[in-house]
């Protein structure tokens, strides 16, 4: 029972260190994603974007953070205090804990669990609670309507996302994220499962409440959606959570379809570049498409959004599951690792 010895603390310290190694760059990434978004959209609209604070505006995110920190935190009188305070924390924590299973390289992962993809799916499905709790606890019409929209949207698109994931899993035969990446050694799943790749990407847009599916915060009708009543740091937590979720969803797309930390081709100059660099550059590519979408597409109408999710994506991905399964069985290509005795 000699648990509280030096080794134990050493191990605990190592885990904490690993977590910090992932979380700190992630938060810096989130800060610069906000800057990148404003700059990219600026250039797409023939503006310059924020370029004054620091060289190329590189210190802008920190200026924004300082501004948010120095503001007053407001607790609305009619709000359900405890829920109101917990909601942003929940959103932020959920956006961070998912990173525990993301493999950055061959063995570079904090927790290499067997059911990695299910864990990611579970955590992303919990994200909706932050939104609902915030909307309900604010005790305000706009916030409540925004939360209802957002929750309905996230639940709807999760269904088709689940089916797309099943497609990938059929080709892999394992729920482990590293196995999913290893299975793409010969070919990225984006090629054989191209329609699923597109559906998954669009679903992630809806899941993160990004344009063209940013109805929950439709400025013209709902002011800002579920976080109208939040200010200062509690608002910042929602903001950080949303952007961390964007990065997470890009990471998921990369893992499922773009070969994670694998180089595009296993040839000399490409395969000496370390895995994490490939992984991060692929994430950046997907994130750029996120921003690009925002700059170029108009917002969906609510009924169109629901129709797209339930009447187009859901049946289509379901049919594709049957097709993939049929194809794999027909050509005897079902992956059977571990030996089915």
């Amino acid at each position, binding site marked *: 029972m000699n648990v509280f010895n030096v080794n134990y603390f050493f191990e605990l310290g190592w885990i904490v260190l690993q977590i910090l190694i992932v979380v700190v760059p992630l938060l810096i990434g989130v800060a610069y994603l906000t800057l990148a978004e404003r700059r990219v959209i600026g250039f797409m609209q023939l503006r310059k974007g924020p370029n004054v604070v620091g060289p190329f505006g590189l210190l802008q995110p920190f200026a924004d953070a300082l501004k948010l920190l120095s503001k007053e935190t407001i607790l609305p009188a009619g709000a*359900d205090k405890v829920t109101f305070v917990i909601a942003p924390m929940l959103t932020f924590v959920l956006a961070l804990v998912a990173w525990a299973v993301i493999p950055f390289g061959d063995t570079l992962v904090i927790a290499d669990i*067997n059911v990695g993809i299910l864990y990611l799916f579970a955590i992303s499905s919990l994200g909706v609670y932050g939104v609902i709790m915030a909307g309900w606890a604010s005790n305000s019409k706009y916030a409540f309507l925004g939360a209802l929209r957002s929750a309905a949207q996230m639940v709807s698109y999760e269904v088709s996302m689940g089916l797309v994931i099943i497609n990938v899993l059929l080709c892999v035969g394992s729920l482990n994220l590293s196995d999913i990446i290893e299975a793409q050694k010969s070919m990225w799943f984006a090629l054989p499962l191209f329609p699923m790749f597109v559906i998954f990407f669009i679903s992630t847009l809806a899941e993160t409440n990004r344009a063209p599916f940013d109805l929950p915060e439709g400025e013209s009708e709902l002011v800002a959606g579920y976080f109208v009543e939040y200010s200062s740091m509690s608002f910042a937590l929602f903001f950080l959570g949303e952007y961390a979720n964007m990065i997470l969803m890009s990471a998921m797309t990369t893992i499922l379809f773009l070969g994670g930390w694998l180089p595009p081709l296993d040839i000399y100059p490409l395969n000496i570049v370390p895995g994490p660099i490939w992984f991060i550059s692929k994430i950046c590519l997907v994130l750029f498409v996120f921003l690009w979408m925002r700059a170029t597409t108009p917002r969906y109408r609510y009924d169109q959004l629901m129709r797209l999710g339930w009447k187009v994506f859901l049946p289509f991905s379901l049919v594709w599951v049957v097709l993939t399964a049929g194809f794999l069985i027909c050509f005897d290509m079902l992956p059977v690792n571990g030996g089915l005795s």
Partner: protein
Amino acid sequence: MIETIFFYLFASVTCLAGLMVISSRNPVHSVLFLILSFFNAAGLFILLGAEFLAMLLVVVYVGAVAVLFLFVVMMLDINFAELRDGFQRYMPLGLGVGGLLLTEILFVFFNRENMPERLDLTTGVSNTRALGRVLYTDYIYLFQIAGLILLVAMIGAITLTLRKRENVRKQSIKKQNERKREDTIEVVSVPTGVGIRKP
């Protein structure tokens, strides 16, 4: 040691949250506590080595079913005083159901030697595979029947709530996509002082 600490943590939070579900005054809080309790139950599953079940519990119950609960409870206009009046009335029913469940659990507990063999989750086979092997072979009929029951329940819910509404504008996507520029827009040059005359 660590596992014991986590077991007591998860178990006590599950029980406390369960208690709060029935004792908190605000129904929305009840649902939130229910979610907390589900979540900790998933933690208990993980300690048992049933990681697949734990994740499914979170995805299905917490991620989908409880969201619908929360939706319904938030949308209902609940009279709190009325809610408390019902307490006396529903007490016997609640106690009855609770007693039944308790008997079942005690039955399992005292007959644990005679129970069917527990799946061995500690060996090399991952527990997703182990579950799949029994679920789709030995229990395939039960599995299919469960699916059918859910389907019937779904159809029932849809027939109960579906109604044809009049005076609702609906967009036909097909019609919309088939519309051409020529069908709707006509370019005319308007002579000054004359205006457009309908032919």
